[in-house]
């Protein structure tokens, strides 16, 4: 570096550095979709695939039994009762089961809720397939009403051998302020 003149001028370096700063700021936000993709691919953090699984015919592996436990909680300040009908079921991989979850709107107002699932251990999340679930949609519930919400699932027969127990937990959130139009319309209908 004896030749001082061959150095790039200040503003060129500054521009490049500012460009990097902007890029890293954008990268911070890009982490959000990246995180979602990684979680969906790996089941990181107990993300269950929140789409309806195809209910195609499978072989039931009767040689194994897996204990599936259910936990429910309501988000802080959410004034509903929310409980599973049974706290656990024992299933063979491949076998389809239905479990009901009971919700009760304890308030005097019509409300809309949504349940968010999570599976532990995260690894098991990839093998829990829901063919039908209340958690796919928002749930309207009139003041004081209660409802049994079905969840139908099966375990993928490929579920690793070392998983004997898995826990599916639901947290119920108040979505009244964010209700979608069709749910609102449902709620407007007179009770029959």
């Amino acid at each position: 570096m004896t030749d001082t003149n061959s150095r790039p001028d200040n503003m060129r370096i500054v521009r490049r550095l500012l460009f990097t700063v902007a890029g890293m700021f954008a990268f911070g936000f890009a982490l959000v979709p990246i995180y979602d993709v990684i979680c969906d691919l790996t089941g990181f953090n107990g993300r269950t695939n929140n789409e309806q699984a195809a209910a195609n015919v499978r072989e039931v592996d009767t040689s194994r039994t897996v204990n599936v436990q259910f936990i429910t909680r309501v988000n802080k300040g959410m004034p509903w009762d929310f409980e599973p009908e049974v706290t656990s079921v024992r299933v063979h991989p491949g076998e389809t089961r239905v479990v009901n979850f009971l919700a009760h709107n304890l308030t005097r107002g019509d409300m809309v809720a949504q349940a968010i699932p999570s599976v532990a251990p995260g690894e098991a999340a990839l093998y829990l397939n829901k063919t039908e679930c209340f958690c796919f949609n928002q749930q309207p519930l009139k003041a004081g009403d209660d409802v049994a919400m079905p969840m139908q699932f099966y375990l993928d027969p490929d579920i690793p051998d070392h998983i004997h127990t898995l826990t599916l937990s639901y947290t119920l959130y108040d979505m009244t302020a964010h209700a979608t139009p069709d749910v609102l319309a449902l709620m407007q209908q007179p009770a029959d």
Partner: protein
Amino acid sequence: MSYAAGEADHNDHHHHAPSGITRWLFTTNHKDIGSLYLWFSFTMFLVGGAMAMVIRAELFQPGLQLVDPHFFNQMTTVHGLIMVFGAVMPAFTGLANWMIPMMIGAPDMALPRMNNWSFWILPFAFAILLGSLFMEGGGPAFGWTFYAPLSTTYSSDSTALFVFSVHIMGISSIMGAINVIVTIMNMRAPDMTYMKMPLFVWSWFITAFLLIAVMPVLAGAVTMVLTDKYFGTSFFDAAGGGDPVMFQHIFWFFGHPEVYIMILPAFGIVSAIIPAFSRKPLFGYASMVYATGAIAGLSFLVWAHHMFTTGMPVAAELFFMYCTMLISVPTGVKVFNWVATMWRGALSFETPMLFALAFVILFTIGGFSGLMLAITPVDFQYHDTYFVVAHFHYVLVTGAIFSIMAAAYYWLPKWTGHMYNETLGRWHFWLSLISVNVLFFPMHFAGLAGMPRRIPDYSLQFADINQIVSIGGFAFGLTQLLFLYIVIKCVRGGEKAEAKPWDGAEGLEWTVPSPAPYHTFETPPEVK
């Protein structure tokens, strides 16, 4: 401004400046700005220290006696934020401003006007942060790590001010980093090749790139907190499709490189001081440069060691565990090189050397507790306990802060033209050394025994340990007032310092008179 080289007066006091306050407001001189940063940092050190005293006073006994828990949480939060962003980082930037141009033979920083801005927005950032403490509902109380949903759903109304102040701090650091990079790339004296640069310059060069890479990510994280809290987005809210664990990934992607931002310049300082007082050149210069680069690179691959207990898959836990342990290899190279530099050197133990030696030993202790924390299965026990508090205070207080004190003593003669009082300096060192260990060492035991961090009350079996820790804390806090006294005394007067007061010291900064003239190296020096 026309100062003749060698004119001795203007750095003596910063009160009787040539043209009053405007000199400091509008200055673009790297030495002035360096001094501003250093004084600002010291002020913040005392403010953050006062908060630590509140914390230790409350924890002196079990039970709640002095402050209510919400205020206690604000103290731990703002203490952390101030020490990280207000004390340690500005101190290093101040040292960079003062020393980098003088070390590479440049007349000033490359972008002097931006330099002025990057300093002067800082006081506003901290005024906003501190002001938020006085608002209804209080200031930030969610920890310096501001995990969502603590900082979104459950935070006080003043959170917008916290976000805004972090934005300003980030902009300031980024401007400072850009300035350092451009200065080092473009302003070196003609024969100052990259591999001749002092290690302090090298370590700051690498630190500046870390800052450029991660401060914007921090800005993104606080922005997401802001929009989640006030504008209805759900980045971190599961109800809207977000995920609170993602907050931790984003935060620690910034957070772990950040801890290296706070230690790499310290490595540079110690690499200047140890050879000077061993009267030997630094052992393994090139390996030091590469080790610093390796540490910086690896620091992007280890963030999730702060999140072992969030339920990651085993493969990920192992990946982050091994990467974390890998960092101790280049770190070990550094410690080895410092020790090898001292080997058979003609050692003398003036205050800067004492602090540098304490740095090597105590930082290594912090590295060991870090290694223990890096072992995934045991971290489940240690996580969120006082063991973590002990770990990061060893690396940050006896690491970063001790190195800053070593630097202050080492370069004070150059800055002020006077020698500091060596006897008082040694008193400061020994009192600090003893009290800091009384303060932080027992925290290891409290943590291993299960005492959680960030709590205003604890069960009775921790009473004795906490009492000892608090006493160490008060002693360490008081001792730093002695440091303030020593520095002021040295600024005001004292034995005249020669151009090179340390006979073993190397570097261009010692070729200019003491105090360093207002303008140095207007014509580039010759580099051997």
